[in-house]
């Protein structure tokens, strides 16, 4: 190599620039310097992603079906009988009809809870390159979406909006390792925190639930709803989150840890809704699947 010296200067200055950018971004967030750059880039890439998503939708859904079939061998064995019945329906169903069912379910959930939502469709997803679980949706500030709003779908809580551009918005999913949401066990008033596990939780199939009271009963099958945040940002109250699948024995710890399967399938999201207005009164457990539950929970919680 004859120009090793020049190469070293170029590489060194590029690496220094990268470190400078990291430092700037780390310290200032949406600063006046980097904020507009992010905005312009998000506009350009967002437009391209919206165009590409509309073209590649059938391809993506085909592979999604393929991936779902291959990863759930155990489940397929269990549900093969039901699958046979459903397959006939599925093949007959058009993609649009499927989407309309999702939208209907979501609107039903929103109606039961009293949320006012803006429906949107997922157009892009980040898993590589990156360690964050985030998706891009095709609704933005023009549709009334702001940062720190709750996102849900027909089945339950999905995540929160972190950035809203004109026509698109970025949603960080519940399974992202950086996200944590207040949650409540159904029936009782036991509070806890739901954390994402990222790739450690087999890519969004499990969430970690920490129950703050270590003496409260916590068993498999308990369902969790969101607890809500102050002024309903970023999470509104009463959205179904998931069902406890595994309780970890943590003797001597201040909190109890359990792993929950989210109601919303965070690995293959399509139609989602952004809650632009929270209900005036928290809907408590009434939004959990199966309608309004009977007064006593699955496992009776001893009253204090």
């Amino acid at each position: 190599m004859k120009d090793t010296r020049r190469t070293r200067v170029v590489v060194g200055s590029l690496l220094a620039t990268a470190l400078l950018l990291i430092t700037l971004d780390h310290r200032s967030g949406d600063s006046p310097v980097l904020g507009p750059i992010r905005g312009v880039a998000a506009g350009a890439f967002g437009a391209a992603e919206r165009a590409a998503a509309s073209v590649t939708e059938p391809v993506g859904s085909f592979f999604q079906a393929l991936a779902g079939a291959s990863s759930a061998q155990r489940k397929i064995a269990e549900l093969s009988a039901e699958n046979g019945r459903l397959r006939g329906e599925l093949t007959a169903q058009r993609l649009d009809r499927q989407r309309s069912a999702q939208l209907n379910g979501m609107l039903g959930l929103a109606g039961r809870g009293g949320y006012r939502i803006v429906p949107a469709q997922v157009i892009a997803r980040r898993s590589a390159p990156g360690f964050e679980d985030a998706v891009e949706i095709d609704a933005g500030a023009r549709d009334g979406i702001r940062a720190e709003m709750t996102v849900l779908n027909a089945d339950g809580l999905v995540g929160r909006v972190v950035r809203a551009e004109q026509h698109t918005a970025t949603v960080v999913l519940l399974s992202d390792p950086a996200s944590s949401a207040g949650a409540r066990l159904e029936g009782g008033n036991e509070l806890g925190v739901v954390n994402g596990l990222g790739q450690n939780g087999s890519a969004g199939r499990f969430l970690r639930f920490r129950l703050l009271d270590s003496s409260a009963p916590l068993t498999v099958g308990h369902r969790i709803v969101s607890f809500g945040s102050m002024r309903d940002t970023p999470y509104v109250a009463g959205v179904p989150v998931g069902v406890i699948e595994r309780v970890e024995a943590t003797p001597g710890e201040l909190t109890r840890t359990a792993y929950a399967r989210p109601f919303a399938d965070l690995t293959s999201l399509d139609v989602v809704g952004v809650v632009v207005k929270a209900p005036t009164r928290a809907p408590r457990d009434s939004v959990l699947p199966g309608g309004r539950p009977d007064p006593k929970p699955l496992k009776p919680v001893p009253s204090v």
Partner: protein
Amino acid sequence: MARNLGTAALIFAALVVQMTVINRMGFSVTPDLVLLVVIALATLRGETAGAVIGFLAGLAADLTPPTDHVLGQYALVMCLTGYLAGRWAARVPLLSVAACAVGAPALAVGVGSLLGDPGVDWSTFMAIWPGTAVCNLLAAPIVVWAVRGLFRPARSRDVLIMGRRRP
């Protein structure tokens, strides 16, 4: 000039395809198309160009929505990857592509954990790296072949022993 514009367009297309198609297929591990394109371009054009292309592609990957990490993280990783891929390509082209495709995800996890990215630690490395490395290795020949077809080497000195030599 036309070549540089073509390179930029290729990276833009790779980013959009990665975000809208590959990542949405629902597989838990996916090949990193942008990284493979950077490696392929670096083996064609040498270490300096590889570093510059890697830096710019990484910056674009940092800026493409949806994003929730600090700006510059992937610029750093891909700049180093592009430089190393270009540097080793002169002597061991095949090995260079393979080493960079396998090593870059590990480097990304390392940089992420050094920068304090939440939830990036040793268990993340064990969960992500083997699958991603195998995926990248499988996808690398296809991407390198496609990129070499698009950008045939300008001088015969740059022709690598891998792939078909063009007249």
